[in-house]
């Protein structure tokens, strides 16, 4: 599922850097808002599954941190689009992210115990890494509204923190 996940984003990234296609493929602010919100929702749903499934305190605590932070970021994002009178616009990247996440959740839902913990936490490391890459190379540089850009930059710092936190939890599970 990672492969597909990454492939979807890689396509976007490659298209974004191809000189001829650049202007057309740069996501617009309404699309960026939609992608960021979708990425947050995906992690909240994964967290809910982990809170329900895992019996390991470190994993449940981590999942609760993810749920809390991503809900806070998404609330800020909603407040901002409302203020800017921007309607988030669904797009191919959001759809690819959602489809890949649905597959990942289906895979996780079949696991339990240590196998679940390991798969969830490893996916969290990879997922945050992937979202951070997209934020750094595509979403932040493409954002034209200053407030949206600033929110994405704060989001990047939060998610970089989550990536390190997830790596720490992954280390504890070994």
């Amino acid at each position, binding site marked *: 599922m990672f492969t597909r996940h990454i492939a979807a984003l890689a396509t976007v990234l490659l298209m974004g850097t191809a000189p001829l296609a650049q202007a057309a493929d740069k996501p617009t602010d309404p699309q960026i808002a939609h992608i960021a919100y979708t990425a947050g929702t995906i992690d909240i749903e994964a967290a809910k599954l982990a809170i329900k499934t895992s019996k390991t305190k470190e994993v449940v605590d981590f999942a609760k941190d993810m749920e809390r932070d991503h809900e*806070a970021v998404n609330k800020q994002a909603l407040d901002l689009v409302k203020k800017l009178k921007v309607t988030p616009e669904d797009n191919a990247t959001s759809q690819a992210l959602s489809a890949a996440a649905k597959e990942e959740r289906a895979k996780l839902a079949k696991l339990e115990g240590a196998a679940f913990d390991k798969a969830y936490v490893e996916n969290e490391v990879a997922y945050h890494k992937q979202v951070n890459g997209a934020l750094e190379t595509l979403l932040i540089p493409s954002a034209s509204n200053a407030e949206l850009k600033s929110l994405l930059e704060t989001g990047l710092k*939060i998610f970089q*923190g*989550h990536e390190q*936190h997830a790596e720490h939890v992954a280390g504890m599970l070994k």
Partner: protein
Amino acid sequence: MSKRQLWIALVLVFGTSPVQAETIQVTIDKLVFSPATVEAKVGDTIKWVNKDVFAHTATVKGGWEVMIPPKATASLTLQKAEAVDYFCRFHPNMKGHLAVTAP
């Protein structure tokens, strides 16, 4: 006021001020501890003011931890002389340093 009372009053005002503990404020805004480095004395209080909508912690590995709720403040009165690095357990990319010396 007699001379003697005045003398006592002066001692109270000036005599106690040099050892009075201070409160040092560290602001957290957009996942940054500011100032990142603080010098303090035993007995001083560090007050973290969290402007973010995210919960943070000030955690010393193998040592103390202060929970700092969103849009709130949290304090710690320094008990011993030590120089420590601290970080946020939820966002380990947030780092601070505290140098505490004897009063």
